[in-house]
């Protein structure tokens, strides 16, 4: 078809363009085959290795980020749990302190009352002892005084008299026997004598 037309269009100017030069077919095949070998040996493996490494790096990064997120979440939950437990613990401690304080106050009050009672008791005892001392002292003096007074009333001194001493002692022992139970009346009785 082309053979018929081309001589008309361009009269015998060139050869049929559809007829190849064998050298060009061979050269095309050789060049492309060599390039294929070079690219398959030295180019594709390197690009694929880089691609693989990059994929792994990105996936590793994502995994790392996810792990960090999980850890952060766990830490947050842990903190919140700790916070809640420490809140309840604080409430419990406050409660304990309140009851403890109440207990201590009650105890202290009891102790103070006991102490007060003891002090009062001591005071009573001391007063009793002093009264006894005063009473015994007074007894001795009153005996002397009474003897002296009676001597003066009778008109003779009974100081050294054996009889007088006996009288006084008897009198005092009587007082003694009456004294038990109503000690406060002793001065009146001695005064009646």
């Amino acid at each position, binding site marked *: 078809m082309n053979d018929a037309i*081309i*001589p*008309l*269009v*361009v*009269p015998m*100017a*060139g*050869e*049929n*363009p*559809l*007829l*190849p*030069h*064998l*050298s*060009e*077919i*061979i*050269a*095309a*095949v050789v*060049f*492309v*085959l*060599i*390039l*294929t*070998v*070079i*690219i*398959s040996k*030295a*180019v*594709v493996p*390197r*690009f*694929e*290795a*880089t*691609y693989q*490494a*990059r994929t792994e*790096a990105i996936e590793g990064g994502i995994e790392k980020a996810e792990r960090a997120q999980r850890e952060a979440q766990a830490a947050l939950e842990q903190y919140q749990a700790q916070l809640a437990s420490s809140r309840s613990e604080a409430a419990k401690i406050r409660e304990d302190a309140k009851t403890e304080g109440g207990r201590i106050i009650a105890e202290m009050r009891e102790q103070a009352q006991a102490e007060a009672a003891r002090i009062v008791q001591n005071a009573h005892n001391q007063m009793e002892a002093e009264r006894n001392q005063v009473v015994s002292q007074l007894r001795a003096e009153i005996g002397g005084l009474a003897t002296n007074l009676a001597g003066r009333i009778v008109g003779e001194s009974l100081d050294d008299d054996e009889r007088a001493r006996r009288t006084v002692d008897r009198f005092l022992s009587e007082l003694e026997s009456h004294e038990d139970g109503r000690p406060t009346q002793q001065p009146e009785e001695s005064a009646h004598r």
Partner: protein
Amino acid sequence: MGLLIPLLVPMEGYEPPGVQSFDFPPLFPGAPAWVDRYLLQALVAFLLVGIFWLVMARKNKLVPSKGQFVGESAYFFLRDSIGRDMIGHEFRKYLPFLIAVFSFVLVNNLWGIFPLTLLPTASHVGWAYGLAGMVWILYNAIGLRKFGPLGYLKHVTMPPGVPGYMLPIVIPLEFFSNIIVRPITLSLRLFANMLAGHLLVLVFVLGGEYLLVESEPIINKVAGGASLIFSMAIFALEIFVQILQAYIFTVLTAQYISSASSEEH
């Protein structure tokens, strides 16, 4: 039409560009006839492609530099957009061939607009025949190896789902289309686009120059100037066509490999 030319272009001395414009003498006197511009261009293209890929693959880092980014963009375009999408999970085996074919065809096509060459290598049909013949052998070999001779014949000629009474028509058609026509269309598509594109450029540039410089009437000079200016648009169109043809050639190669090796049609 040969008779009409003197009538339409009544200018002595103007020789319209034709297929003879694609014939060049050997590079230097005394060299064999096959050592011509085409071979030199193909050789330089071969070297450029090889150096480009080797340099791009030399030291790849996780975080790409600017130069590496260029190589990676080209690589992953071919790998993912052509290889993986057309061929599927087995694409890795055929990826080096696809890269080599695409790069080689692209650079050789772009010689058509490169100022020092201005001649697409595939405008000589031998280059297109060589490339397409290689693809033809490759995809048939893949199919034969995978299915065996009879299995491959059945795989090629009997698409699934065709009713039995249609097979007498379908089998010859499929055989004709898949085995005979494919390499022819593959080579002629590339060759014809390159030849026609270059011829178009020649017509606009040489014709415009002749009208502007050699011919007398003022209308011819205006037409010649317009033609030269418009040739810039033709150049732009050629860039597009050259890139597109390289892409189509590679996509069809992947498509043929895929159809020969896929389990179902």
